[in-house]
Structure formats: C-alpha cells, structure tokens
C-alpha cells in the first residue's frame, strides 16, 4: 500500500513539475532572448485558464476551450509586448519589475471586472476522465498523466523548435548577440513579439490544464509565478534544459516533502504536532533547496553563458 502511495505522490510531483516547466520555459526564454524579467507571466497563466473555462462553458467542449486559451494568452501577450514590454528591453531590472507589477494589477483587476470575483469551474474532458491502475495497487487519475504527457511533448517540441528550425536559430542568435542579427536583416522587433507570444501561449496552456484540477480565479497565477521563478533560478536563467530539470526538482521535492515530512517527524514527536510542524517545514522546503543550490552554484545548475 505504501509503495502505491509513494508512486502516486511521485507522479503528482512530476505532474506539478511539468506544469511548472510550461510556465518556466516561457519565463526563461523571454529572459534569455530579451533580457526581460516578466512578473506578468502569472497573469497570462490566469488568462489562459479563464479563456478555457469561459469558452468550454459556452461551447461544451474542453478542446475548443484549450485552443481558445492558447489564442487568448498568445494574443494578450502580443498586445502587451507591443504596447508596453518593448519599451522595457533597454531599461534596468527595477523598471521592468515595476512595469510588469503594474501589468499584474491591471490584468488582475481587469479580469475581476470581466468575470467577477467568483471562481469558475472547468470539467475534465470525458476522454480523460477515469483512472489507470498503478503497479503495487491503487489508481492514478488519467488526466494528471495526460498533463505529464503534454509537458514532455512540449519539452520535446521546444527542443526541436530551438535546435532544428529557422525560428529557433534566430532565437539562439538573439540570445547571443541581438545587434548582430539585427544587422544581418532579421526583423528583431517581430522576433521579440513572437518569442513573447510563444512564452505567453505556454503559460496559457499551463493555466488551462490546471484549471480543470482546481478552480479558476483571479490571483491563481501568482503562487505559480513564484514557483516558476524558483525553478528558473535553480535551473539557471535562460536555459530551457535548466528549466526542465529545475521544474522536476521543485515539483517532486515540494510534493514529497508535504507527503513524507509529517510522517518522518511523527517518529520523534506526537502525531498532531508532527502534522503541523511537518506542514510548515514542507512549505519552506523548496526555498531551502534553492538556497542550498545557490550557495554552491550562484547562477543555477545549467547557467547559460553570459
């Protein structure tokens, strides 16, 4: 029984990790190519979830909702890139933090205006309802397995995109020398908009997928945003590979910490105390891991060369 529970928790950790990867990949790509720290990435996640929930409720199809979430997040991403973000590329980090903080206020309150303060709900599509048996007994939700699959597919797709295609070549060139590829005739403004919209679409996808597991509400993006920051700091900012490794580390450590710490502490102290202390420590665990990693590798596990 314990083995089954352990496998289930490991899978949960993996699912959380791959969902974080969808967020972190966009953040790290945007930072790597444009040198921009984007706090509003969590708002794009929220927009994806709202678009999916609204369209799925109107059409009755989760899949149309999913397409809507990608479109909405990429569209809003492109609009804010053109209207605001592109003025920030040559500013310092402080201006970027504040301007994107202002965007969070605008987008969060704007969504509350449009959708109200009550959470929306999104159903898991019928095909993915149900559970699959796990080795050692026990069952696992099919939908969560599907999220793991999507995460792996996106990771593979991003790898192909960046290493094999012309767009990927331009993105890599933009990371290493933006003046030079501008001089070689690449329209750098459009490239930046495309990269930003791509990152936004990934965030929107993550929001839509998670929207079916929890309620869709204003502010849902912020805890995820901060976890995604931890991920890219651990992985090394600018590195997609680092984002994947960091995301899995954060997802698994967080989930396993919440699962194991209370029981481990219960060996040395009364059960009720162990539960509260264990929960408190588990919520801090990933930050401790991050601090440890940075104490030894101040620019993350897979730091991109500057």
């Amino acid at each position, binding site marked *: 029984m314990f083995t089954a529970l352990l496998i289930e928790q490991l899978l949960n950790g993996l699912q959380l990790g791959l969902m974080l990867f969808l967020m972190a990949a966009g953040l790290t790509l945007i930072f790597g190519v444009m040198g921009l720290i984007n706090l509003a990435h969590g708002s794009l996640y929220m927009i994806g979830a709202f678009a999916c929930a609204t369209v799925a409720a109107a059409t009755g199809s989760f899949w149309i909702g999913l397409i809507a979430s990608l479109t909405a997040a990429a569209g809003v991403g492109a609009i804010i890139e053109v209207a605001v973000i592109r003025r920030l590329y040559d500013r310092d*980090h402080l201006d970027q933090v504040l301007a994107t903080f202002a965007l969070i206020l*605008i987008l969060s309150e704007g969504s509350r205006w449009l959708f109200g303060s009550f959470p929306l709900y999104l159903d898991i599509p019928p095909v993915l309802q149900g559970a699959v048996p796990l080795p050692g007994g026990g069952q696992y939700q099919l939908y969560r397995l599907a999220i793991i699959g999507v995460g792996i597919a996106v990771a593979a797709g991003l790898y192909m995109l960046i290493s094999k295609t012309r767009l990927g070549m331009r993105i890599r060139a933009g990371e290493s020398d933006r003046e030079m590829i501008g001089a070689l005739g690449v329209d750098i403004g459009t490239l930046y908009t495309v990269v930003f919209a791509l990152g936004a679409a990934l965030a929107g996808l993550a929001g839509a997928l998670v929207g079916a597991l929890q309620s869709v509400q204003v502010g849902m993006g912020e805890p995820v945003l901060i976890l995604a920051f931890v991920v890219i700091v651990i992985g090394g900012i600018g590195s997609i590979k680092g984002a994947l490794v960091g995301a899995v580390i954060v997802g698994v450590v967080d989930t396993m910490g919440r699962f194991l710490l209370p029981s481990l502490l219960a060996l040395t102290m009364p059960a009720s105390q162990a539960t509260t202390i264990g929960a408190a420590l588990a919520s801090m665990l990933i930050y401790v891991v991050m601090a440890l990693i940075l104490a030894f590798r101040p620019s993350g596990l897979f730091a991109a060369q500057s």
Partner: protein
Amino acid sequence: MNRETTINLLLAALLLGAPLLATAIGEPFYVTLATRVAVLALAAVGLNFALGLGGLLSFGHAAFFGLGGYVAGIIATHAFNAEPLFAGIPATTSMPLIWVTAIVVAGIAALPIGAISLRTTGVYFIMITLAFAQMIYYFAISWPAYGGEDGLSMSMRNAFPGVNTAKPLPYFLICYAALIATLLFFRVVEGSRFGSALQAARQNGTRLAAVGIAPFNIRLVAFVVSAMITGFAGALYADLNRFVGPSMLSWHMSGELMVLIILGGKGRLFGPVAGAMIFVFLEYVLGGITERWQFFLGLILLGIVLFARGGLLGLLSGKPRHV
C-alpha cells in the same frame, strides 16, 4: 538651499500639519491616514537604503516588514495573556523594547538572507530575495500558533512611556518622529565614508574592490541595516492596525514598497515620503470612487515607469544631485 531641500521641508511640514489640522477640526480618520503614510514611508526609507543607495533590488523586504510586525504582535499577545515569551523571559507592552526586538530580529533574519542572496547579482538577486520572503510567508501561513492564515489581532496598542498611544494624534507623532529620525540617519549615512563606499559599490563594484574595499561586506551591512529599518516600520504598522497577518509578508507588500520609492523618486532622501503620500492618497481617493482602484493604480504606475522616470521629486526638483 536648493530646490529639492525646500521641497523636502515642505513635504515634512505637510505631513506634520495635515493631522494637526485634522485633529483641530475633529476628523481623526485623516490622522490615521497620515500615520499610515508615515509608517509606509519609514518602511520604504529602509528599502531605499538598499535600493537607492546600494542599487540592491530586494524584492523581499516584506519579509522584514512582516517579521517586525509579528514581533510586535507576538510579544503583545504574550503580554496580554501574561505568559512568558520563552525560557521565562517576560513579555512586555513597552514600545521601545518591542521596537528594539523587532529591529534585532529583522537584522538577524537579514544576515543569512543577505549573505546568500548577495552571492548573486541582477535578476537572480531579485528572485532570491523574493523566494526567501515567500519562504517566511508560507511558514507564517502554515504555523498555527500565531494565527496562521488568519493573522493575529492585538487587543490594544502597546504603551509608550508618557504618551497615550490609543489616541490617533499621539501615535501619529511617535511614528512621525521615528520617520524624521530615520531620515536624518539616512542623510548622515549617505554622506559618511560608508555611504560613499556603498554608492561606489552600486556604480562600480570592481573599482571599489580595486581601491581595497570589499563590495560584498559593504552591501551586506547595507542590506542588514535596510532590513532593520523596515522591521522597525513593521512593528509600528502592527501597532497602527492592532493587527498583524501574513499579508504583511506577501510579495505584494514587497512590490508596494518598491512602488513607493519609484512614485516618489529613487535614491532621493524624501522619495519614499512623497511616494507614500501619493500611494495612500490614490488608495483613499480612487478607493472611494471605485472598488477597482488597483486597476487605475496599475495604469498610473505604468505611466510613471514608462514616461516619468524620476518620480514626483524628479518632476518637482529636477535632476538628482549625483548626476
């Protein structure tokens, strides 16, 4: 006396005069607003120490603000229940003792956080300070002994010898005095050898190292002092609201402290004061018109970051001295 000094004195006089007037015409609510301005300004003066002078973009100063607040709240709760704090140390309701404790606790927390965070620079530093603040935030939420998610209410304000702190005006005067004293401290440090070294560390750490001063130590001291000031403000904030909750530790709070500095003008002595005045004014005026006031705050902030980079003091008093 240059234009910025004149404006600074005017701001100081305005912040003192408004609550006196409000008390005279019997509108104590405005005194509370002014107290809020003074306390938020004090917290932002602390951040300005690291951010304005040292160029350290801490996105985690809510941690120190909240720690200061929790110190005040926890000590007051123990005193109210007549329980010792720990190891038989009696609790107290004396503000000066609580302030010293809050300042020391914030400093002790800032030492390891700063020592680890300052190994990194740029965007890493922003995110690490944010992550440490989140760590403390989640700890406060999941630790039930002091209110957890609900926070901790204090049954009455702590005491200051010879002052009736329960009344709005005396408490305002305490906070105002704390703010002015800290601003004087800021000015003295800014002009001192340490302040010069800190500003040199901001402008060019390599050059500072080349003349024989280790930038790391200078920055760490600045980070700790900055956290102590913000922790002090946190204790005052808890007493102002007679409540302390996890929202004081949240990353929105860290963002707001940065916003205060930018609204007023980065690196300027009275920047945080001007910023806190604008912020509380907007919060009050926009909040009275629409419950969606944060939407408009966001627009205003975006406009200032994009088009008015010097903040209010930049608009009013021209270029900063050190350009």
